[in-house]
């Protein structure tokens, strides 16, 4: 059983039709799990389901063996989960430093160490610490978003398409940083459009199609699988 797992999840938004059908995604501590699949496969929805942003009709979400299916997203933050939304993931009018401080809002202890860690991971943020986050480039903004999430000292970091809209160079760098974060023992669950590159760094990959698990294996095995390559990775 994985450290964080959403098991046999079935459900959709509000009272609408089900988007997920018996879908299972999970991740171990210190590992990177990637959810890939075609447009409309329910990748982001699966992620949001794990974070409690939609009501599951069936299935459960467990963290460290504890059932958290009934908890609100805010309560899950306190359980050690951090979520980086795909868009609007910074406070645009606030400085980079205040963005990070807001990430640590629920913490009562000293946050300077965490702040130093984030600045160590993303040196550009230290340079721009007094600049409003809304004035930064797309890639820098993603770094602020990931930094803000790390400030809660999460055990699980969930990233919804962290490389959407950034250049390939910035993408490679972001992936490097994500690997570094995973090495510190944090479990990383992310949704990615750039399937090939993402599976390259993934310990585990989930290929979703129409809200169902189609293939589940290690990242390397999925990359090597001719059927996956042909259908989802462009040969």
């Amino acid at each position, binding site marked *: 059983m994985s450290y964080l797992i959403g098991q046999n999840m079935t459900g959709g938004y509000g009272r609408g039709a089900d988007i997920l059908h018996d879908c299972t995604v999970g991740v171990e501590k210190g590992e990177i799990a990637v959810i890939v699949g075609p447009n409309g496969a329910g990748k982001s929805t699966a992620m949001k389901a794990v974070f409690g942003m939609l009501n599951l009709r069936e299935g459960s979400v467990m963290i460290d063996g504890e059932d958290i299916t009934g908890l609100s997203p805010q309560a899950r933050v306190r359980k050690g989960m*951090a979520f980086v*939304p795909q868009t609007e993931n910074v406070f645009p009018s606030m400085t980079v430093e*205040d963005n990070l401080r*807001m990430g640590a*809002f629920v913490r009562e202890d000293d946050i300077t160490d965490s702040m130093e860690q984030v600045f160590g991971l993303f040196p550009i943020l230290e340079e721009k610490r007094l600049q409003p986050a809304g004035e930064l480039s797309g890639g820098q903004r993603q770094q602020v978003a990931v930094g*803000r999430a790390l400030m809660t000292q999460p055990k699980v970091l969930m990233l919804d398409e962290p490389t959407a809209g950034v250049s390939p160079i910035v993408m490679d760098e972001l992936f490097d940083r994500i690997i570094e974060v995973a090495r510190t023992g944090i479990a990383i669950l992310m949704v990615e459009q750039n399937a090939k590159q993402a599976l390259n760094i993934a310990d585990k990959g989930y290929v979703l199609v129409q809200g169902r698990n189609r293939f589940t294996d290690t990242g390397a095995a999925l990359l090597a699988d001719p059927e996956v390559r042909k259908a989802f990775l462009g040969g």
Partner: protein
Amino acid sequence: MDLLNALVALANYILVPGIAYGSQLALGALGVTVVYGILRFSNFAHGETMSAGAMFAILFMWLFQSLGISIAPLPTIVLGLIPAIICMIIYLLVTDRFVYRYYREQKAKPVIFLVASTGLMFLTNGIIRFIIGPDDQRVSDGARFVLKAREFKQFTGLNEGLAIKTSQLITVVAAVAIVVALFWFLEKTKSGKSMRAYSDNENLALLSGINPDRVVMIAWTLTAILATIAGALYGLDKGYKPFTYLQLLLPVFASAIVGGLGSPIGAIVGGFVIAFSEVTITYAFKKVIKYLAPDAWAPEGLVQLLSTDYKFAVSFVILVVVLIVMPTGIFRGKSL
């Protein structure tokens, strides 16, 4: 000498009243902007909230006067502000509990909040008439002037006098103090930053563990403080008439929108833009022109662009023009 006389006349009739009125509008607009930034609707009840705050301040003023408590030369109403603010905080939190909270839980659209606030506007107006009645109330006691026109004339030897009312001085000092305190709160304290974060990106604020109920509570508390002080100062300056606050809603909203809704700096700048436009356009420039121009050019009329009866038309025109040309206001607030 004529030039000096002209300048003093301008200062006396435009600069001093404009600054005082601008401060009152700025405080009112700040209240509107706080509600807009946090609760995301245009609070049409804000004028009556100011009126209710002023009413409580007057009730406590009467209490203090009957007890013989005085802080002369300052007007007693200043002392009444503190209990009045507490009453208004309670009043606003109660209305939030019984009106707005329901719509928040329903995730209602801003226009529904707006209509609800209009209902509260009438309700508050009724409560005010019920308690204090529809009549005018004189609220200024203590020293009336800081600087009298006659003293100024004797001192400088000019023809024109410059008068500064105590209420005007108090208005400006109080407005500066409140604005400094508000900005300190929003920029430096953790609670203040969480308010800005909530206003910036509500979902992300929730993901960061910021408690929305607490943010809403602080927002109403700030609104109560700002509205009570703005309302009481306006009453102190111009006399308290319950129905004028309904009319005051227009320049207050115009200030907030001209500056950029949701932007505190915008609310202040907007307040002064509206105040000076109103005062300048309704001022009769005859006297000033007489000082500056040769005698032969002396105008026959008052050289007043608009009669003071039309002063609200000024804010209305500015409001319409801003909404058409620059809907987000000077400081790029949120568009309506």
